[in-house]
């Protein structure tokens, strides 16, 4: 669900966040309007608004784990985790985590990739939110959900700053709620 439809309609912070995101046409390939959150990170106020909105939503939901998807999930997840008193768990590309891992594969446009998590990082029945900067097809988030559920943890919600049109109208991802702050900027632009 989009934040504007879920209690934050007209919230000026959402507009500030949207305005701070830069669109880079034709990256990584022709036809893709890439949503660049690095400009959001340069705007201290807008970045703070982003974190505050997630923190306000999750602080009273007894969340003990914030899992962030490499690498842009790392830029948002830890600040949220610190503010709500939760652990931060990085979900990483293969071969990065040094200890014993479990892994889950997911589809790319061409081929597939894997997401890994340390064994023992999450315990059964822990309440988890999963963070990434953007959700497109939901493939990566689905893999993250599978990792958590394989360890007996409960995914309470997936949270992203940006949600592509494919997810609009869908409230659920693999049966789990999805919370998104803004739609992509400048889809009708072309340079």
């Amino acid at each position, binding site marked *: 669900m989009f934040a504007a439809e879920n209690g934050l309609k007209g919230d000026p912070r959402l507009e500030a966040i949207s305005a701070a995101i*830069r669109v880079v046409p034709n990256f990584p390939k022709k036809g893709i309007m890439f949503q660049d959150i690095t400009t959001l990170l*340069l705007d201290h106020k807008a970045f703070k608004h982003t974190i505050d909105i997630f923190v306000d939503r999750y602080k009273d939901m007894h969340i003990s784990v914030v899992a962030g998807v490499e690498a842009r999930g790392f*830029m948002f997840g830890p600040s949220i985790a610190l503010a709500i008193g939760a*652990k931060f768990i990085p979900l990483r590309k293969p071969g990065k985590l040094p200890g014993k891992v479990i892994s889950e594969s997911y589809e790319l446009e061409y081929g597939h990739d894997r997401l890994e998590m340390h064994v023992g990082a999450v315990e059964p029945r822990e309440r988890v939110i999963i963070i990434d900067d953007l959700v497109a097809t939901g493939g990566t988030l689905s893999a993250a959900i599978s990792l958590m559920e394989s360890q007996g943890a409960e995914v309470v919600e997936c949270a992203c700053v940006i949600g592509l049109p494919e997810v609009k109208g869908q409230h659920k991802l693999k049966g789990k709620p999805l919370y998104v702050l803004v739609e992509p900027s400048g889809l009708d632009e072309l340079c």
Partner: protein
Amino acid sequence: MQTLISPFVSHSLRLAPPLPRNSLLNNYHQASPIRLSSHFSTTSLRLFNSGAAAASRDSEMTTEDGKDPRIAKIASSIRVIPDFPKPGIMFQDITTLLLDTEAFKDTIALFVERYQGRGISVVAGVEARGFIFGPPIALAIGAKFVPMRKPKKLPGKVISEEYSLEYGTDKMEMHVGAVEPGERAIIIDDLIATGGTLAAAIRLLERVGVKIVECACVIELPELKGKEKLGDAPLFVLVSSA
């Protein structure tokens, strides 16, 4: 698992670290194998505090030897994984620190106490573990966060800097326009080893006229003398792993 102060307990398999606050973390550590080895390195604690009383200014009373009591907790929350990524390397795994909510909070607090109120407008974080520590610090001190990334990850126009690896080279990139001349920056990474990565980050920022106030890491491997690669930039670390 790193020990705290004494180097004399190095030869037992279980190094008897203090019980982590988080019982989940305790189970987690017991699940990870620690190889018996006479070369097993221990960790000595040294708080590198190059001249700034700022780090302890707002903290609780220090221990008898002058160290901030939060440092011990932080050091004990870091897991050591032998032979990763290859034989002979004792990998310092900060993911267990991130599972210890108090230790992670204290880590950020120590950096924030040191850097707030010093006109620092840029926190640059090195991919990928610098992305975990940098943004919370940036938010707390009112600075921008600038990710320093591997090639081809940043979508916009970039400047790049090459640096040496053990075999071969790699490149580090930063977006054009992310920083402006005259800005004051700190550079964050989880660990400094040879210093090659941090040196590349320094060069990138200095090329566009930014002043490096300090490089800040959770862990230093002092034997690798990374500090020497940083030129005039000071280095601040919380934990030194011998």
